[in-house]
């Protein structure tokens, strides 16, 4: 498609347009320098770094345990999985055990957070291309998740809940029933959401066939998570590099099949996330069933934490695989920590994919890749 558009569009007059850093639809502080001929872009060059908070540098200046609240800020839309990544990396480095109930609570909170993160991603995507109503509907659901997470850890966005060797608190009284009740409430909401927007003809026509990413290209550019699965690559860290208690749970990965257009187009990336809501709900339910029979211990704090060596942990976050590479030199602080995040690599793709798109479609492309500025810059 883009080749045809480009062939007709070449009037030879190129305009340079600045978009951002403070632009409502760039999902945070990101800047694009767009070279455009009329409405058709020749190139959109992303310029990142406006939200760089030196999180990797901070990791060298505080203890392993003390760094946990900072990991929330790696990705504040899905902070729980960032907590999990750091905890897992340090546990792998220092060979620490995690009580079974701690693992269950980690997975439950991860999946709840994934639901709320996808709610933001999908809601914001619709709003970016002009549908305001679903955003309000779905943010109401996100409020419920925030309430549930607030009840278990005291915070609504930056949780600081996971600990090295477990989680900070157990389940409050009645929380399990509340979560299960909310799961029952949310299932029909997904169906309603599908009727309202997912299968809406205007919406489908706007997104189908747009900026399709073939599987080989997705792998080459390092797309991960839902973006990768939307391109038809059947890979999920939770299943293929199993961690925590995921091997005990049953779930099906959602794949983009190109049912509305090409495989890996913006609609596929959207749809995969809707399906992941259903997966996460089922995972939460299975965990809640199995957690009953586990011993009540949820945290085994390490006595002495001065590991040596290096380790890499991979976790399936809402924006795809988040991995943390941590080097220890036998002191209480990390010698070097590196977070590899999904949005960072997804942003590289935008320059390549933007050729021949309309300016207005750039917004849909960014939204469909679900990039979040703090996760790009860290």
């Amino acid at each position: 498609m883009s080749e045809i558009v480009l062939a007709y569009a070449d009037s030879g007059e190129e305009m340079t347009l600045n978009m951002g850093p403070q632009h409502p639809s760039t999902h945070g502080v990101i800047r694009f320098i767009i070279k455009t001929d009329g409405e058709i872009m020749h190139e959109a060059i992303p310029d990142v770094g406006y939200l760089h908070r030196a999180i990797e540098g901070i990791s060298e200046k505080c203890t392993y345990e003390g760094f946990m609240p900072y990991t929330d800020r790696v990705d504040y839309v899905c902070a729980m999985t960032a907590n999990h990544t750091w905890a897992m990396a340090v546990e792998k480095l220092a060979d620490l055990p995690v009580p079974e109930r701690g693992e269950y609570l980690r997975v439950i909170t991860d999946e709840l957070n994934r639901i709320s993160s996808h709610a933001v991603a999908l809601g914001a995507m619709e709003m970016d291309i002009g549908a305001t109503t679903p955003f309000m509907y779905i943010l109401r659901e996100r409020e419920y998740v925030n309430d549930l997470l607030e009840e278990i850890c005291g915070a609504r966005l930056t949780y600081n809940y996971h600990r090295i060797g477990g989680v900070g608190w157990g389940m409050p009284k009645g929380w399990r029933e509340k979560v299960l009740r909310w799961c029952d409430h949310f299932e029909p909401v997904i169906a309603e959401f599908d009727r309202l927007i997912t299968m809406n003809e205007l919406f489908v026509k706007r997104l189908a066939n747009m900026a399709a990413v073939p599987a080989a290209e997705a792998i080459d550019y390092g797309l991960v998570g839902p973006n990768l699965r939307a391109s038809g690559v059947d890979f999920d860290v939770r299943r293929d590099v199993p961690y925590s208690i995921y091997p005990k749970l049953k779930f099906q990965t959602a794949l983009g099949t190109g049912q509305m257009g090409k495989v890996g187009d913006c609609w596929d990336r959207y749809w995969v996330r809707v399906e992941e809501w259903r997966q996460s709900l089922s995972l939460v339910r299975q965990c809640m069933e199995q957690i009953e029979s586990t011993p009540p211990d949820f945290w085994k704090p390490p006595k002495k934490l001065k590991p040596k060596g290096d380790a890499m942990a991979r976790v399936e976050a809402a924006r795809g695989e988040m991995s943390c590479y941590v080097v220890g030199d036998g002191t209480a602080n990390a010698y070097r920590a590196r977070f590899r995040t999904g949005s960072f690599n997804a942003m590289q793709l935008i320059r390549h994919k933007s050729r021949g798109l309309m300016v207005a479609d750039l917004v849909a492309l960014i939204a469909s890749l679900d990039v979040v500025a703090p996760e790009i810059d860290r």
Partner: protein
Amino acid sequence: MDAQSIFNHLAAKLGDSVYDFTTTATKDPYFKVKPERWLDVARVLRDDPELRFDFCNNITAVDWPKLSRIDVVYHFWSYGKAHAIVVKAELPRDKPQIPSVVSLWNAADWNEREQYDLMGVEFLGHPDLRRIMMPDDWPGHPLRKDYKEAESYRGMPTTRPNTMDLLPMFDKATPEQRKENNDE
């Protein structure tokens, strides 16, 4: 394939450009590579039908001033074969240079730029080696262990007074002054 057979396979093909395979005392098995041969090794990693490392997961540079070297650590994963490997390259600290692998994996592009920006590793042959996180005219590479931040950048101070320093001033206040403060 497990890490040992991956290394053996590589060593059979490339001789001594790969060395020091380590599985003990490490969580992820790794081997070291000679920086000047890195591009050849990387090409085999990607294209060999037995290996097929199609996903360049992560690139990290680690500064070791005491050993006066900078290590570049690559993490690879193969979607088809479902195996992983870690490759380390040791570079001299005063002139850290290594061939870029952007021509093989596009995912390496920004990762290499970030390591160049924060750690000062020069990736030879990178198409667009600019700073990515810091401003273009920022002096130094912030993640180096001996990095000292300049006092100001373009006339803007990089530090601000610590509010905790004001506390002794309040402690030393006379009872009258304290009362005055409270009344306000």
